[in-house]
C-alpha cells in the first residue's frame, strides 16, 4: 500500500494524558492513500483518544498529528473546518441528530458545505448516499424509529455524503449482532473500493480486523506495539499479540 503520494495521516511520537493517566505514549503511525488500517486494542487502551486527536476534537500534549500535510493542532478553526470536510468520522454511538429526520441528518453537512445547493442536487446526493447503504426507504423516518444496525448505516451514509478522502470509524461493529456486524464490515470494504478512500478503523472486533484491514496496528498500553497484516500478527509468538488472536 506504500505510494509515491506519501501518507494522508502521519502521526509521530504522539502523547496524550488525562491527569496522571498517560493514554498515548510516543504513538507513531502512517495511513497511506486507499489503505484500510485497523487499530486494535483493548477497551480503554486509548483508541478513541487517538482518533479524536486526528480529527482535532482533542489536542495532543506533544507529537505530530499531520493530515493531508497539515499539522492539526496548529490549524485555526476555519482551516480545521475546511480540512474536516475531507475527513469523515463514524461515531461509535452513531451520533445521529435526534431532532432531525434521516433526510435532514444527511442534508445537514451537505447544506453547509455544498456550493450548489438547489433542491434537486441535494435530494439526488441524499438518495445516492442512502442507496449506498441500502436504506433509501428510510429517508423520512426519525432516528428513533430505526434499529441499531440501520442507525449505523444511516450514520455511515451521513459520513459518506461529502465524499471524504479519509474515513475514521470508531468501533463500527460494537453493540451489533454478528450478522449486522458482518454487513457493516462488508459495507466498509465496499465503501473503500467505491470511494477510493483511506480508512482508519478503531475496533476490537476480530472479524473486522480479518476482513477489512490491509494492515493492523496494535495499540497496547498507549504504544504502537505491533504493526502488520492480519496473517502476520496471527502468526506472532508475542504473548500480548497472541491473546487477541486466540
Amino acid at each position: 500500500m506504500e505510494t509515491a503520494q506519501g501518507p494522508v495521516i502521519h502521526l509521530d511520537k504522539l502523547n496524550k494524558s488525562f491527569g496522571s493517566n498517560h493514554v498515548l505514549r510516543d504513538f507513531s503511525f502512517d495511513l497511506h492513500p486507499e489503505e484500510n488500517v485497523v487499530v486494535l486494542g483493548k477497551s480503554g487502551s486509548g483508541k478513541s483518544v487517538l482518533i479524536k486527536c486526528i480529527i482535532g476534537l482533542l489536542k495532543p500534549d506533544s507529537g505530530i498529528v499531520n493530515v493531508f500535510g497539515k499539522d492539526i493542532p496548529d490549524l485555526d478553526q476555519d482551516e480545521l473546518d475546511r480540512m474536516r470536510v475531507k475527513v469523515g468520522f463514524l461515531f461509535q454511538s452513531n451520533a445521529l441528530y435526534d431532532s432531525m429526520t434521516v433526510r435532514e441528518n444527511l442534508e445537514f453537512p451537505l447544506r453547509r458545505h455544498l456550493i450548489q445547493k438547489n433542491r434537486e442536487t441535494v435530494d439526488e446526493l441524499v438518495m445516492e448516499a442512502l442507496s449506498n447503504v441500502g436504506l433509501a426507504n428510510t429517508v423520512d423516518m426519525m432516528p428513533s424509529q430505526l434499529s441499531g444496525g440501520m442507525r449505523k448505516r444511516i450514520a455511515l451514509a451521513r459520513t459518506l455524503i461529502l465524499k471524504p478522502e479519509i474515513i475514521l470509524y470508531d468501533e463500527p461493529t460494537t453493540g451489533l449482532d454478528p450478522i449486522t456486524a458482518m454487513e457493516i464490515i462488508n459495507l466498509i470494504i465496499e465503501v473503500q473500493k467505491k470511494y477510493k478512500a483511506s480508512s482508519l478503523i478503531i475496533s476490537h472486533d476480530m472479524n473486522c480486523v480479518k476482513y477489512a484491514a490491509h494492515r493492523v496496528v496494535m495499540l497496547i498500553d498507549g504504544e504502537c506495539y505491533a504493526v502488520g497484516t492480519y496473517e502476520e500478527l496471527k502468526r506472532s509468538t508475542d504473548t500480548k499479540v497472541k491473546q487477541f488472536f486466540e
Partner: protein
Amino acid sequence: MNTTYQAWQKFLAEVGDVSRFTLRFFKEFLRPRYEGQELLRQSFYIGYKSLGLVGITAFIMGLVITIQSRPTLVEFGAEAWLPKMVSVSLVREIAPVISALICAGKIGSSIGAELGSMKVTEQIDAMEVSGTNPFKYLVVTRVLAATFMIPILAVLADAISLYGGYLGANIRGVVSWDLYWNQVFDTLAYADIVPSIIKTFFFGFAIGIIGCYKGYNSNKGTEGVGRSANAAVVVASLLVFVIDLIVVQLTDVLNLT
C-alpha cells in the same frame, strides 16, 4: 470549614466558567457565518411555543392580583384606584418577572436537556467534525432567540394580564371597558414601561446563556442530562430575581420611578 471553603471555591470556579462561556458567546456572535435560519427556528420554538403558557399565566395573574387587591382598596374607600394600582404592579413587576420565571422553567430546562443530551450522545462532536461550529449553531442562536423573544412574550403578558385585571375588576364591581383602559393608560408612564421591557432582555439573555452553559457542559451520561436541565432552571430563576433587584435599584438611583 473545609466544606465551606470547597463550596466557595466551586462556586467561584463556576462563575469563572460561565463568564468565559459568555465571552465566547460574544466572540462567536460577532464572527461570521450567521445562522439566520436556525435563529428563526429557535425564535419560533422559544417565542411562539411558549406563548400559550405565558398567556394563561399572565391572564390568571392579572385576574388574581385584581381580586386580591380589591378588598383592601374598598376598606380605604379607594376602589376607584384599582385599575391604577393593578396596572403599575403588573407592568412594572409581575408580568415581566412571572413571564421570565415561566420561560426559565420551560425554555431553560428544554435548552439544558436538549444540549445535554446532544453532548452525551456525541451529537455536538458530530456537528464539529462535519465542519460546523456547534457553539455558533447551537448556543448563539438559542441565546439570541431567548434574548429577543422573552421581551416580546413579556409585552404580550403585560397586555393579557391587564385584560385579566379588567375581568377581575368586574367580578365584584362594575368598571366599564373605557374607564378601565383610560385609567390604565393615564397611570402608566414611560418610566414604568421602558425599564420593565429593558430588564426582560437581560432576563432572556440570562435564561439562554445558563440553559446553554449547563447543557453544553453536561457530562456523566443521562444522569448528567437531568442535572443540567434542573440546574438550568434553578440558576436561571435565581438570576431573574437578581437582575430584577439590580434593575429596580438602578431605576431608583437614576430617579426613573
